[in-house]
């Protein structure tokens, strides 16, 4: 998905199910100086919206997602660190019309966020969720977003044990730390239950969203960010044996080109002489 001016009818919203998620320990890693934002519609009785993302103060949006319906989330967009505004308008409303919702997001380098329309139609809010979690080494994180209007009070168990005794409709829990493994996440409400198998790898974090599906309570599992399961290598990498390093100065692969750094060399002298001749 490109962050370009929106003629983006084709800028379709990728729905969950593509496990584009994982969470790393803080501080996470975009290209240095960049963060990630994804957009979500989690209000069951709110119609589809067009979602606009603006750099702070900009008139033209950086990104437009069209016809984002309940239960849809975009992939993470990589953005330079800074301030942004997210605005939601009814689907097909003019870009100049007053948004029905808007929120400011401050994107910090290396951090991830979900900006979600949450709650019921009457009282819908645009919440900015922080998707970056600090995890102890070798652990994983799991949080739940309650987005079912029919079953507004949920209890969540993971791996057979109660993880979250209660989560109310329109709220997101913080990430809970868990041991890695493939666990059954079970969500229960009076008269309803749903379950999904989540593969929790060390160093990753997941968001499970409880939604109203065609057949009752439905769970969406998103891996918010991923990294290698084991401990990261320590320190740097010794990938150089010195064959191109010049005497007393940086390598060819390093700082200034050698012909600027070594005035004592004959070539340098030659240049100097040439300059003198020209000047006179």
């Amino acid at each position: 998905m490109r962050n370009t001016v929106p003629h983006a009818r084709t800028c379709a919203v990728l729905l969950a199910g593509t496990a584009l998620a994982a969470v790393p320990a803080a501080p996470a890693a975009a290209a240095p100086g960049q963060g990630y934002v994804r957009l979500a519609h989690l209000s069951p009785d709110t119609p589809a919206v067009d979602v606009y993302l603006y750099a702070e103060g900009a008139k033209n949006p950086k990104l437009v997602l069209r016809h984002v319906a309940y239960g849809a989330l975009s992939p993470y967009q990589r953005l330079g660190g800074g301030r942004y505004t997210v605005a939601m308008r009814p689907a097909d409303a003019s870009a100049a019309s007053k948004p029905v919702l808007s929120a400011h997001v401050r994107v910090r380098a290396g951090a991830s966020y979900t900006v979600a329309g949450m709650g019921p139609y009457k009282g819908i809010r645009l919440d900015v969720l922080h998707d970056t979690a600090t995890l102890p080494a070798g652990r994983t994180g799991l949080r739940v977003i309650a987005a079912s209007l029919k079953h507004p009070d949920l209890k969540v168990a993971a791996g057979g044990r109660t993880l979250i005794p209660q989560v109310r409709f329109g709220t997101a829990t913080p990430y809970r730390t868990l041991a890695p493994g493939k666990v059954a996440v079970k969500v229960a409400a009076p008269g309803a239950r749903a379950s999904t198998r989540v593969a929790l790898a060390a160093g990753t974090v997941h968001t499970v969203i409880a939604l109203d599906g065609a057949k009752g309570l439905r769970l969406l599992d998103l891996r918010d960010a991923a990294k290698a399961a084991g401990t990261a290598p320590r320190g740097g990498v010794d990938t150089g044996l010195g064959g191109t390093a010049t005497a007393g100065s940086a390598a060819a692969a390093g700082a200034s080109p050698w012909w600027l750094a070594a005035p004592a060399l004959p070539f340098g002298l030659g240049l100097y002489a040439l300059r003198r001749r020209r000047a006179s």
Partner: protein
Amino acid sequence: MIRRALAAALCALLAGGCGARPGPDAAATPTGWRPVPGQVAVPPSAAPAVRHGAPVELAVPSIGVRTRLERLRTDARGILGTPRDPMKAGWYAAGVRPGDQGPAVIAGHVDSRTGPAVFARLRELRPGAAVRVRDAAGAWTAFTVDAVRSAPKAAFPTAEVYGATPDAQLRLITCGGAFDRARGHYVENVIVYATMA
């Protein structure tokens, strides 16, 4: 015909209007904006992400790099080993596969004892340059360079290089900076950050 006229009449009535003109009453409910009870979540349209194969070859056309990949691992001290062949780069095999979610890491020597090596020109890369990785099945995955940075090995940005990411990322690492002849190592690493295209 009648429906259209009716729709037009309705539009005219609603303060928001049906076009680009905002109505005089800014607080009026936009057209068609009302609660829709009983909506169900739209089912996901995309297939789950496929796991990529282990990489066997790397190509960086703009700097003339084409190399098969050794498999790298950490030593007893936890430090990442380097390719035995200076003309080959290596992939950190216990890490992420290029194209999978998270940061894949490939390292290569900038020079051998006698001259330039596989990543001699790595620091010439610029944002926008293409990087391609092939797996054993022959599938290529493309990445685009976002940034090229140097960092002292003594203050290596481990979190930035190895920390989890929401998308598929790649880091290419080589040496740079001054060469410490007493210790036989360069003092800096040059790190190229790239995102799957």
